[in-house]
């Protein structure tokens, strides 16, 4: 399973902060996004936004990066700390 985590407005729109996805072998972050969009159509615009960042196992990852079983993938709206 892959643990997908939502934060801030993504969490609000998804109505949950976490969702598990079963994947076969490896998928890319983009593949995972497509799976999420099917479950949460309202997240489409934000997930496709150029300002969205992605993390795999709490480290920044490119959108073409590979996700494997057991990974934690974070979808991170633009930060506003500080």
């Amino acid at each position, binding site marked *: 399973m892959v643990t997908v985590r939502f934060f801030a407005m993504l969490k609000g729109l998804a109505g949950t902060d976490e969702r598990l996805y079963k994947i076969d072998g490896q998928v890319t972050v983009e593949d995972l996004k497509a799976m999420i969009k099917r479950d949460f159509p309202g997240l489409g615009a934000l997930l496709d936004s150029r300002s969205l960042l992605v993390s795999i196992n709490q480290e*920044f990852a490119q959108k073409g990066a590979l996700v494997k079983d057991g990974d934690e993938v974070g979808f991170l709206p633009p930060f506003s*700390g500080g």
Partner: protein
Amino acid sequence: MTQDLVRIQVKPFSAEREIELAKKASKGIGAVVVFIGTGRDISKGVEISGLDFEHYPGMAEKKLLEIRERALVNFDIIEMGIVHRIGKIDIGEDIVLITAASAHRNDAFMACEWAITELKRVTPIWKSETTKSGDVWVSATP
């Protein structure tokens, strides 16, 4: 020691204590520059009555520790501390505090300013502002 200097916490922090913590590193410290970010009552022209911060537990702490490490490598500073609050924060309260301690002041100024800019760029922390029309997630701050 580093765990003391770099923290994310719900409760308020004391500037005095953070400064003392950074100064402990060496008697060769001659300058401490402190940045404190506080909750303003106005944001982009909209009246704000309160703030609420959320973070990515684990990753946010790691990013702050990395900022400190990189600052110690890239600037001629002796110590750096970073504390960020999460949860509900009132207007006027402190949100974040960064200390940079060095022998000479230029280095502390540069490192402190770099650290807060970098914090805003790479740390998964999000702010929600309470306005008259409800709570709004802030999409980015300069």
